[in-house]
């Protein structure tokens, strides 16, 4: 039975929820506000910030000084490229773990997850050296590989969870119907797992887009994505709040919009299997 909620109670709940929501959103809101102010106005007291004139100057300067579209396209290539590559590797891996598990499957999955608990900086030195040796420092291909590898455990785990929800009998039916392993995965498993694969892709695009440790450390100019673009405006000397804010807004806007439109899919994906 549903709990009875009085109108007063409901009002209080609503107000509290909004207050918490605004509190969480406030930093982003403030960045957006600051991005439309001049440098001088951006560092004044909050009241004066809000009442001062609005301007697009910061955006113009940012675009003029650093090539936004180059960084944007790098971000897209890195995020989408690493995710797709990850999915291609992870589908067969998750298939085998979900449908032909061995005694060690659980252990392998935990081991994969444990790599996510390793501080990234711990392997920075060897990876940096490897990149130099291979001549892939500041290249998109190098970063795609690294981002793919760091997100692979999550992709495999998510796909594994979805695949486990697919009744094994359907795959057995495909096998009886004469499908080879490749056909079984291509024509039966993958189409059935589309909702799961879609939310995996979405989440990993977001994770890869926001990844700032490797993208900052392994790039200089050529392969630098939007994270590097923002970072270039955080300087130890001088206060460029307005420009930094404008750069941040430009960097997070695409992923924020994408997340907004796909939130239903994402929530479904993240809670998949939680109920049944």
């Amino acid at each position, binding site marked *: 039975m549903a709990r009875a909620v009085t109108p007063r109670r409901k009002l209080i709940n609503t107000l509290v929820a909004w207050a918490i929501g605004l509190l969480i959103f406030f930093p982003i809101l403030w960045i957006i506000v600051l991005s439309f102010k001049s440098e001088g106005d951006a560092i004044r007291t909050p009241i004066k910030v809000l009442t001062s004139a609005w301007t697009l100057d910061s955006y113009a300067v940012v675009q003029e000084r650093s090539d936004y579209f180059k960084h944007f396209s790098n971000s897209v290539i890195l995020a989408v490229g690493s995710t797709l590559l990850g999915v291609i590797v992870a589908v067969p891996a998750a298939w085998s773990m979900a449908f032909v598990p061995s005694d060690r499957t659980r252990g392998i999955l935990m081991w994969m997850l444990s790599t996510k608990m390793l501080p990234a900086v711990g392997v920075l030195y060897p990876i940096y050296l490897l990149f130099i040796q291979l001549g892939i420092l500041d290249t998109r291909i190098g970063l795609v590989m690294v981002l793919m590898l760091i997100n692979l455990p999550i992709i495999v785990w998510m796909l594994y969870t979805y695949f486990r929800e697919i009744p094994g009998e*359907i795959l*057995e039916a495909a096998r*009886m119907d*004469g*499908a080879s392993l490749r*056909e079984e995965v291509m024509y*039966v498993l993958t189409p*059935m797992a589309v909702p799961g694969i879609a939310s995996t892709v979405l989440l990993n695009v977001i994770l890869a887009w926001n990844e700032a440790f490797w993208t900052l450390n392994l790039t200089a100019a050529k392969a630098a994505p939007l994270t590097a673009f923002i970072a270039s405006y955080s300087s130890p000397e001088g206060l460029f709040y307005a420009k930094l804010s404008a750069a941040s807004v430009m960097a997070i806007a695409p992923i924020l919009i994408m997340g907004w439109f796909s939130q239903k899919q994402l929530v479904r994906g993240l809670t998949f299997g939680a109920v049944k």
Partner: protein
Amino acid sequence: MGQIQLSKVTKKFGDLTVIPPLDLQIEDGEFVVFVGPSGCGKSTLLRLIAGLEDVSGGQVLIDGQDATMVPPARRGLAMVFQSYALYPHMSVRKNIAFPLRMAKMDQAEQDRRVTQAAEVLNLTDYLERRPGQLSGGQRQRVAIGRAIVREPQAFLFDEPLSNLDAALRVGMRLEISELHKRLATTMIYVTHDQVEAMTMADKIVVLQAGRIEQVGSPLELYRTPRNTFVAGFIGSPKMNLLSGAQAEKHGAHTIGIRPEHLLISTESGEWEGTVGVSEHLGSDTFFHVNCPGFADPLTVRASGEMDLKYKSRVFLTPDPAHLHRFDAQGLRVE
């Protein structure tokens, strides 16, 4: 051709032996039913024949060829699953055509076969629908359609009717029997429902704990059950099994008498008892009669409507021609 032979087939899951060495011969065109209580290994046996499970020992021969190591796709067998196992993202047409598409058959032939199967199974109007939009019975027919288009050597059915409601189950049972008559292809059918086994089978294989208890035609099993397990499993309601003084009187450790072979009378008879629960089916009436000195109440069938009050006194007389006798090991004594 669809002759299947199991030779010393065993199956182990780890240390657990599910199927001890087992031999079975299934002739071409036969309708064979594997029946037994849940966990008796009947589904495992079917999956071994299908190739979905690897045997731990022994051989599976299909038409005389050793198929033990042949993958399921190349055994020429079609399977219908309990859960239907349809491809939810494909239309009925694509579901049925899937095995043909996997066999790289040309499109015209695919269409011809799908159309034909749809006609046979009354699915013509539903070809463009998705499985999710169909009722349980229709889904089961799609699953059967997917099996028949391949024109397999043999059909394997794994409890195909247990997800359907009772009325539909009877209808589908007839449809499958009719399909067997028309196609004359070997069918192996797994069920825990002895009524399905009795009504459909040419040959019933009764299994318990992975062992074959008896193989025979439905009436052979009904008339001459080889042991008390088969005696109690085949027939509905169950055979009454009595041991102790009553059995010794007939020179056996256990005697069995079916409800339909007990004569009920209010005046005289061999055993005296009182009526417990009565079940009125219209065509028959079943009485559960408590007789003093008997461990369990006896089930008695009376033809047609018969009204006896609760606790009223009745007499029962077993028909000596249909009395089954078993020894201390539970084996039949002739």
